[in-house]
């Protein structure tokens, strides 16, 4: 049983190997292989299979199964036979090949043995030969060594002489080359007396050479090329680069200081009008030094002298110190630092000079030369920038340029202010002068004065803008730089100049309104003109000016958020105009009220005679108001007025007091007084409250209304402080009637005059001991006569 199992295992193994050989995939039947009844499976067990067959199948089926199995077995047998047969031939040919190989290898072994013996004999021979040649070769190498050594020694012994000769011939570079060759050896064998002598000699000579070189280096007259050579050689001779840099730079500085900057300095002194001492100089220099140059020449001489020299120095320095020491970063950095420091220092001095010189250029009106010189200056600086990439002089230069531009703007602003002050003085003089001749003339000139002032201011601003445009001309390099152009156009020109000037006008005008005490002498007409001026500014001039500025200086719209908006300026101007006009109304109103007050206070109203005439004061008032009307009419439009329903109603007097008077003539007692105040109170209820010193509109009518209101209110308050007799009351009646006749045409709302006059008469009635009113027809008659 065990054997059977093993046989079966072997069989299965073989089976597997066969399968592998034929590439049958085992796992295909892997799933079924566990089934012992699968006849093709690996775990097929014949007994179980057979038992199952017998159990499950009928006889006929079994019979069929048997025959089927038999045929399958037969087929398998024949298959096996063909397989064995096919492979047999292959085995035979393989055996043949192996046998043949065995024979070939044996022959090869023999030949290899032979080769080995030959090789050993060759080695023997070569060893012999080298043995015999050894001695001679050693001798030869020794001799060669000695020869070269002798040569070197000869060079060394001759070195001092050579060096001397080289120095005599001024072939410094040759000398340095020789020396640098020998230097190490000499240094090494210093302890031997003979070498020491040579070394000392050489060193002496070389030190001499160094001295010579240094002399040349320090010599003012030596050309840059010579200098470069010197520096080069000195560097090779091991002079420390740092010291050399320093010396070189200080040398250069001295030169530049003495020659170029001094000239600039002297120029500035000259420009200031300072005396300078003459030193012993050539006549040409003396001439150059004593005549003041204009700013263009100044910048030119700065560019040609100072800047070009400093450029040369930089270029040379770059060549000698910077480009050669690439192997040593430290030295390089140090040298660069020194250079930058040097250049910065000098440039600072130079900028300082230019700045001072440009500042001196204040008083002239023309910009072109200044701008051209600034342009040249700016351009040269940009060229500098290319030479020394790490530093930015053009920034500093532009700063100077912008500062110069700013100074100019400030100067122009000052001029404008001065001009405005002159305008004001002119107006004052004009106002004062014709007053001697006659009032009418003076008022006739107001509009002319306004226009001339306006046009002068505008022209001034335009010319200033034109002058300033030179700074932004297209052929000027710095004008194209955004960091100059932006701030200059917006901050300086627009904000600083235009907006600044407008604000100045405003503040000057406001001063007129405030300083009543100190500047009490301001003529009212001036207030009026200024008010109109500010109003015109608000209406058109401001926007015109700003648009003009924006056009001329190509201001960009997107910057406008940082600018003072036009609307702000307009509002400001309008406020100022309003304040001026209000002040005008107040001043004029007060002067008329003063007249009225005096007239009421100084009269004994109890004991006057029956009125025959309108009092002269009232005529004066009307005259004055008419004059004011003409004055205002010159500058302000008529304005709208509240029309009453019909002209005829003007003459009728529906006053409360007259109504009550008509009812109860001559019976003034307790009752009508209440009646009266009641009536006036009712009237007040329906009419709007009258603001006395209120804001007026920009129209003639409104201005006049303001003045009339102030005057009449004063009249009323004065009346209330007095006690009247019958004729006093009647005089007031006549006066107010007269005022009414003439005042209605000046004011916007006749009703207002009516109400105020009624109140005056009403108050007079209150203050009257014997209130008997005059007949309206008599009043009319007196008024017409007056």
């Amino acid at each position: 049983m065990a054997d059977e199992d093993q046989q079966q295992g072997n069989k299965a193994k073989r089976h597997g190997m066969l399968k592998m050989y034929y590439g049958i995939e085992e796992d295909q039947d892997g799933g079924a292989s566990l089934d012992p009844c699968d006849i093709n499976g690996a775990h097929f067990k014949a007994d179980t299979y057979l038992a199952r067959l017998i159990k499950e199948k009928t006889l006929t089926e079994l019979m069929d199964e048997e025959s089927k199995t038999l045929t399958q077995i037969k087929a398998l047998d024949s298959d096996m036979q063909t397989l064995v047969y096919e492979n047999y031939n292959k085995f035979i040919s393989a055996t043949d090949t192996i046998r043949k190989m065995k024979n070939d290898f044996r022959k090869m072994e023999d030949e290899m043995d032979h080769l080995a013996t030959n090789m050993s004999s060759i080695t023997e021979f070569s060893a012999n030969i080298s043995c015999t040649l050894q001695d001679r070769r050693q001798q030869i190498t020794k001799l060669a060594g000695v020869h070269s050594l002798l040569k070197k020694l000869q060079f060394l012994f001759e070195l001092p002489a050579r060096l001397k000769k080289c120095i005599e011939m001024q072939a410094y570079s040759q000398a340095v080359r020789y020396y640098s060759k020998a230097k190490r050896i000499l240094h090494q064998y210093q302890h031997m007396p003979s070498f020491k002598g040579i070394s000392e000699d050489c060193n002496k000579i070389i030190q001499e050479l160094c001295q010579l070189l240094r002399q040349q280096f320090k010599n003012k007259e030596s050309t840059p090329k010579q200098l470069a050579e010197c520096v080069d050689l000195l560097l090779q001779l091991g002079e420390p680069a740092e010291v050399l840099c320093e010396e070189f730079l200080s040398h250069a500085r001295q030169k530049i200081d003495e020659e170029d900057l001094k000239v600039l300095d002297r120029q500035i002194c000259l420009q200031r009008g300072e005396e300078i001492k003459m030193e012993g100089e050539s006549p040409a220099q003396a001439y150059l030094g004593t005549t003041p140059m204009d700013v263009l020449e100044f910048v030119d001489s700065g560019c040609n002298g100072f800047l070009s020299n400093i450029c040369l120095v930089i270029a040379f320095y770059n060549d000698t110190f910077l480009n050669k020491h690439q192997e040593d970063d430290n030295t390089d950095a140090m040298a660069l630092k020194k250079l930058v420091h040097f250049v910065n220092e000098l440039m600072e001095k130079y900028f300082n000079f230019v700045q001072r010189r440009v500042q001196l250029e204040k008083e002239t009106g023309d910009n072109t030369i200044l701008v051209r010189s600034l342009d040249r200056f700016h351009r040269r600086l940009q060229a500098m920038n290319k030479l020394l990439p790490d530093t930015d002089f053009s920034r500093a230069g532009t700063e100077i340029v912008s500062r110069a531009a700013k100074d100019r703007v400030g100067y122009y602003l000052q001029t404008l202010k001065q001009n405005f002050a002159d305008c004001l003085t002119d107006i004052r003089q004009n106002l004062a002068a014709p007053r001697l001749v006659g009032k009418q003339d003076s008022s006739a000139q107001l509009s002319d004065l306004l226009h001339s002032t306006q046009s002068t201011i505008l022209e001034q601003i335009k010319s200033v803008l034109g002058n300033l445009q030179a700074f932004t001309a297209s052929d000027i390099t710095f004008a194209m730089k955004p960091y100059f152009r932006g701030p200059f156009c917006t901050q300086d020109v627009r904000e600083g100049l235009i907006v600044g000037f407008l604000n100045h006008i405003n503040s000057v005008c406001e001063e007129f309104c405030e300083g009543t005490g100190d500047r009490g002498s301001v003529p009212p007409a001036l207030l009026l003109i200024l008010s109109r001026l500010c109003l015109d500014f608000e209406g058109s001039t401001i926007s015109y000016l700003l648009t003009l500025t924006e056009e001329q200086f190509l201001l960009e719209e997107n910057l406008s958020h940082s600018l003072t908006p036009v609307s702000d300026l307009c509002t400001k101007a309008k406020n100022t105009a309003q304040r001026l006009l209000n002040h005008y109304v107040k001043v004029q109103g007060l002067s008329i009220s003063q007249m009225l007050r005096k007239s009421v206070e100084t009269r004994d109203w109890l004991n006057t005679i029956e009125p025959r005439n309108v009092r002269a004061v009232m005529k004066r008032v009307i005259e004055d108001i008419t004059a004011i009307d003409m004055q205002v009419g010159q500058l302000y439009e008529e304005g709208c007025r509240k029309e009453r329903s019909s002209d005829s109603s003007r003459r009728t007097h529906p006053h409360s007091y007259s109504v009550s008077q008509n009812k109860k003539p001559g019976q003034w007692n307790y009752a009508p007084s209440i009646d009266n105040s009641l009536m006036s109170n009712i009237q007040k209820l329906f009419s709007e409250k009258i603001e006395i010193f209120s804001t007026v509109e920009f129209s003639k009518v409104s201005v006049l209304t303001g003045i009339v209101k102030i005057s009449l209110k004063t009249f009323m308050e004065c009346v209330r402080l007095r006690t009247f007799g019958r004729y006093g009351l009647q005089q007031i009646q006549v006066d107010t009637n007269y005022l009414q006749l003439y005042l209605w045409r000046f004011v916007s709302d006749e009703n207002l005059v009516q109400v105020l006059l009624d109140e005056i008469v009403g108050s007079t009635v209150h203050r009257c001991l014997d209130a008997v009113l005059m007949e309206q027809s008599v009043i009319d008659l007196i008024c017409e006569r007056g």
Partner: protein
Amino acid sequence: MDDEAPVIYGLEFQARALSAQTAETDKIRFLVGTQSLRAENQIHHIDFDDENNIINKNVYIHREGEIWDISASTMDSNLLATCYNKTTESKTEMRGAVWKLPSDYDSTQVEDHSSHQSLQLVCHLDDTEYGDMKSVLWHPTGDSSSLIGLSDNHILLWDLDSSSSTAKLTASAELESKGQPKMTCGRWNPHHNSQQVATANDTAIRGWDIRSMQQVYVIENAHGQLVRDVDFNPNKQYYLASCGDDCKVKFWDTRNPTEPLKVLAEHSHWVWAVRYNHFHDQLVLSSSSDSRVILNNIVSLSSEPFGHLVENDDDSDEDQQVQNRSTEAPKDGVIATYEEHEDSVYAVDWSSADPWVFASLSYDGRLVINRVPRAEKYKILL
């Protein structure tokens, strides 16, 4: 009930004389004098009931003439002085007299016009040779029974003996200047032992020493036009407020007459009266013929420029105070503008009893009693 609402009282006549009943310090009382040429003039004794917001009044007949100025005595609450206009057919005269209220205030008095009592005359302050009497001033502290009368161009010092009902003229001083100077108003300085008086004529304000009856200082051109009123700061001895026809209220230090300390230009017409609050001198009232009353806060010139700096025993309150003060520094400015009047407001005065109540009187006879806005009140108190 809205405490802030003004209380309005109407008189039947025109009126321009108003005074707090100065010697009465418990109740809010005002005296108003009417101005009528034809009817019998009255003095209205107004009592304001603060809690119920009710006005009670007593009306007394003032037989002598229309009242232009009224001033309550500082020593006896029943005494008052008036300047009245005595008119005859051909002339008017301004006279002064001292009166006594006939009875103590009687709130139960029957409202009956016919039964108005007359004022009892104490004495006339007559001295016709000095011209029209413009104003009568009582001694500011009530310590002495002296009176000052301002006539056209004289300052008259009277000594009142109320027991014998006589007044004796003890001294006088004459204002001498160009033209015919007429004094418009005056104020007795409560400081310096009450020995100074300030008067105003035309545009100038003058100070007088009543011991020597000499002028001690003058503010020329104090206002652009006529000066209408002056008032002394009750707490700071050299400080003076003035107002006038240039629509301005100005504050002066009498030691420096050349320049005002501060100028207010809030009114739109002449300013007729200016009054310091007796207790909190940052509160300044001004009234004007633009029919407005303006309550100003002039803290910068007050005796409490940094707020109320009294030592407070109540600790919890103190903390709050410190906080309030640090958050907002008090600033000058208008506290309120009162527009209840419809005619020119010629007089305004603080109550002598309640520091937060004041009355204003307009020409049409309307008396308005107002209070300082509560927010402002707390700001000052806390």
